[in-house]
């Protein structure tokens, strides 16, 4: 429990309403996108960098740890309060300081919802390419924390590629600025890059300089339907070999086709093995030749191929994909999301691997994948109330991670490590690499004050 002195001081810093210490209030901050939970000593929601600094100093005086939190949508337990900590929630820092389209930069506070930023940018014909499927809820600070990806990564990259600079409150309560409004303002070491994806373990992000770019002038959306997942993988390989870089190559397997059909009635054939959504963007003149090449490739092996002719048809194609995660809830009440990633050439083997794991463990697994990136989301379906089943699911998820590592991949392509995948880190990294992580953590946070126990043990 927090002492009354600390609570009072916190209330002085951020105002009465922005400190939560009651049981019910704390409960909501004890969860994230995983099955894990914890209980914080308190939750505090600052409005400014100065308030963040004051909070950090106060916590240091009392030797209390801090767990940073955005919208809490992460899928890895990164915001679960552990080790007697206070949650610092950034949901009150929601100012968009500046949008400067002519200089291709926007400056925002960490609590800004990705979607809210996109809406403002679109009014000025620009956008921020990282768009995790959770973009309607997740915050820019959280996107930075996880280095989130989205459906457009194949062409446009991930959050890392669009962060120009950060204002950061260090564990000692001091403020630094990394980078700036352009690519060339890092102070010798690329400090921005090490904080992006560090899951709040190195510093608290209080301001973000994001790179924005003009919306593409033209876009074409296509849908290919296959008998077998392997055929879809072949299309992906062929498109890459043809020298085309689509923005999107999203795949759903038979199980997901059926669950999404139950939900959205988009008209996908229920007996299909896989569907692939393909999107290209760029100058209008460059669209037709690319679409032509892609049609030729798809028509060779796809059972059906269509090119969206209107915005409505584009929407229809995307409807299934958008409801993919939610749709499986009709089959079983719970699902575990994984984000294993393998080199693109091993994608077919990874799909085989998923089937094998499903069979071996007797669990139902559906697959949504960013196929161009080799990034799979095997959704393991189960019932959370059934303890035994939960154990089996954990075992199956471990098997999925090990399978990805065997295929020269990684246990996390976009969701991060947090608490959930921490146990696999020694299998992915050599002791020397783990040593490098610890050296970095020690440089920033020698007393292990920020998000302790996440990603790896110091």
């Amino acid at each position, binding site marked *: 429990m927090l002492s009354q002195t600390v609570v009072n001081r916190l209330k002085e810093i951020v105002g009465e309403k922005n400190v939560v210490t009651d049981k019910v209030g704390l409960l909501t901050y004890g969860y994230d996108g995983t099955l894990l939970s914890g209980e914080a000593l308190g939750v505090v929601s600052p409005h400014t960098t100065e308030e963040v600094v004051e909070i950090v100093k106060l916590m240091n005086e009392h030797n209390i740890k801090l767990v940073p939190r955005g919208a809490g949508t992460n899928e890895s337990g990164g915001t679960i309060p552990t080790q007697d900590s206070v949650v610092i929630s950034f949901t009150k820092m929601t100012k968009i300081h500046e949008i400067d389209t*002519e200089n*291709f930069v926007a400056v925002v506070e960490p609590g800004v919802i990705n979607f809210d930023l996109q809406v403002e940018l679109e009014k000025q014909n620009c956008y921020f390419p990282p768009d995790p499927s959770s973009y309607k809820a997740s915050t820019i600070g959280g996107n930075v924390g996880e280095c989130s*990806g989205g459906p457009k990564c194949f062409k446009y990259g991930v959050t890392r590629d669009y962060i120009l600079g950060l204002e950061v409150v260090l564990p000692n309560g001091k403020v630094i600025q990394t980078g700036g409004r352009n690519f*060339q303002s890092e102070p010798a070491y690329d400090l921005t890059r090490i904080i992006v994806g560090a899951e709040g373990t190195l510093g608290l992000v209080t301001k973000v300089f994001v790179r924005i770019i003009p919306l593409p002038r033209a876009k074409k959306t296509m849908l290919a339907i296959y008998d077998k997942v392997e055929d879809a993988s072949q299309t992906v390989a062929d498109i890459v070999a043809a020298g085309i870089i689509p923005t999107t190559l999203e795949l759903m397997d038979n199980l997901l086709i059926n669950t999404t059909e139950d939900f959205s009635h988009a008209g996908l054939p229920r007996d299909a093995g896989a569907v692939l959504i393909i999107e290209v963007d760029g100058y209008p003149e460059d669209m037709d*030749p690319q679409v032509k090449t892609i049609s030729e490739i798809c028509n060779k092996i796809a059972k059906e191929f269509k090119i969206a002719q209107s915005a409505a048809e584009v929407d229809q194609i995307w409807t299934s994909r958008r409801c993919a995660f939610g749709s499986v809830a009709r089959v079983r009440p719970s699902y575990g999301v994984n984000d294993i*990633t393998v080199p693109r050439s091993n994608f077919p083997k990874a799909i085989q691997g998923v089937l094998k794991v499903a069979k071996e463990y007797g669990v139902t697994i559906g697959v949504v994948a960013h196929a161009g990136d080799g990034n799979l989301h095997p959704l393991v379906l189960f019932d959370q109330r059934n303890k035994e089943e939960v154990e089996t699911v954990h075992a199956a998820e471990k098997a999925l991670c090990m399978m990805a590592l065997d295929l020269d991949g990684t246990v996390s392509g976009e969701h991060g490590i947090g608490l959930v995948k921490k146990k696999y880190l020694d299998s992915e990294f050599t002791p020397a690499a783990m040593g490098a992580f610890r050296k*970095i953590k020690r440089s920033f946070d020698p007393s292990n004050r920020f998000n302790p126990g996440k990603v790896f043990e110091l």
Partner: protein
Amino acid sequence: MSNVNISKLKAIVGDNNVIDSPSEMAKYLKGQGKPAVVVLPGNTSEVSNIVKLANEQNVKIAVGGAGVGTKGLSGGIAMVMSRMNRILEMDHLNLVAYVEPGLLHKEFLLKVGEAGLNFPPEPYEVETSSIGGCFSIGDSDSKSFEYGPTRTFLLGFEMVLPTGEILEIGNKCIKNVSGLDFIHFAVGSQGTFGIFTKLLVKLLPAQEAKRAVIGTFTSIHKANATFNTLIKRNIQPTRMNLLNASLAQNAIPGTEGQLVIIDLQGFKESGKNIANEIAAVLTLGGGTDVKIIEDEVEYDQVVNGWLKVRADLNGKPERTVEFLVGPAKMPQALTQLEALTGDLGTYPGVVVEGLLGYVCLALPEGTDKLALAAKVNRLAMSLGGNVKGLLGHKLKSEAYNDAEMWQQTVGLLQELRQQFDPKGILSPGVSLEA
């Protein structure tokens, strides 16, 4: 003097690969420092053993691809990576390559081109830069608006740490957020975290179409104004660069006036229209000799001319000041700059990278670089920008009168370096003080 044990070094890499006669060493060395020996390792374990030996004997090591900078290296070991110059794998399915660090950047570009692929980062120095050096320096170049800075193209590496330990990290996945991002953090660390011994590099499909539009202007301001027009018209080419009259002749011999080079890579079908639109904007903006270049040989001449100018500037960092203000603020920046520099058209050197809002000034003989940089930084800050890199951070902290921020930043950099290299063995020439 030096503690370097030459016979132990010879035992590691073989007699032929240890050079300690000053006359033979010279061709591998840059600068005034006097290392005791040049050593050319042939593989990772040799690199590791050399570093371990240096630790035992407490001597410093600096690394280079073909040649080594000798600053702070007196009595130490100059490690030349040129024997480790193989492409170990070129993987078309995953669009990646495993490369050894001593391969020259220009050779790698040739091989990548032959394979029908594209590696966007440009060599720092055309003739001598290595792939290890490319990622060691990191940075961006004038194509980065389209392709992203150098770090975008690194997916993993093998590195010998300052203790001699070998670290491997990364894989062929283009998406990977596992652990901390040491992969990209190492880019730009200038050999202070370790010596790259293998790089896993990301590639792209080759650009099928390449075009350039060039034109000359009597006024640098008019030339730059065309960039703003293009951005307002929502045209983002691969790069748009401006070289002032003094540099223009070095890029394309015989050029008179301020030279604009606009590069269009990709844009297979649209390129013709875009090039025409750009040419019209340049002409309307006062450009003469505006020309669309589609011929491959001529295109390469233009790009190589630019690379040569860039390398000349990179080779003398003590004689340049670099700053950024963003493209939209560039007209004001150039106008205000003339109060400090006089006529920019005839200044020893001015480069504007239009899409990045970047300027590099080559200073006249006898200029006090730091004094000018401080003034330039104040100017840039008033337009939302700053001087580049670590120096920029120092000047910004000074301008804000925020000594604490500077101390924190430098303190953090030094702590990181110290954690990796507690004995201070590697890259003695690199300063984190600005």
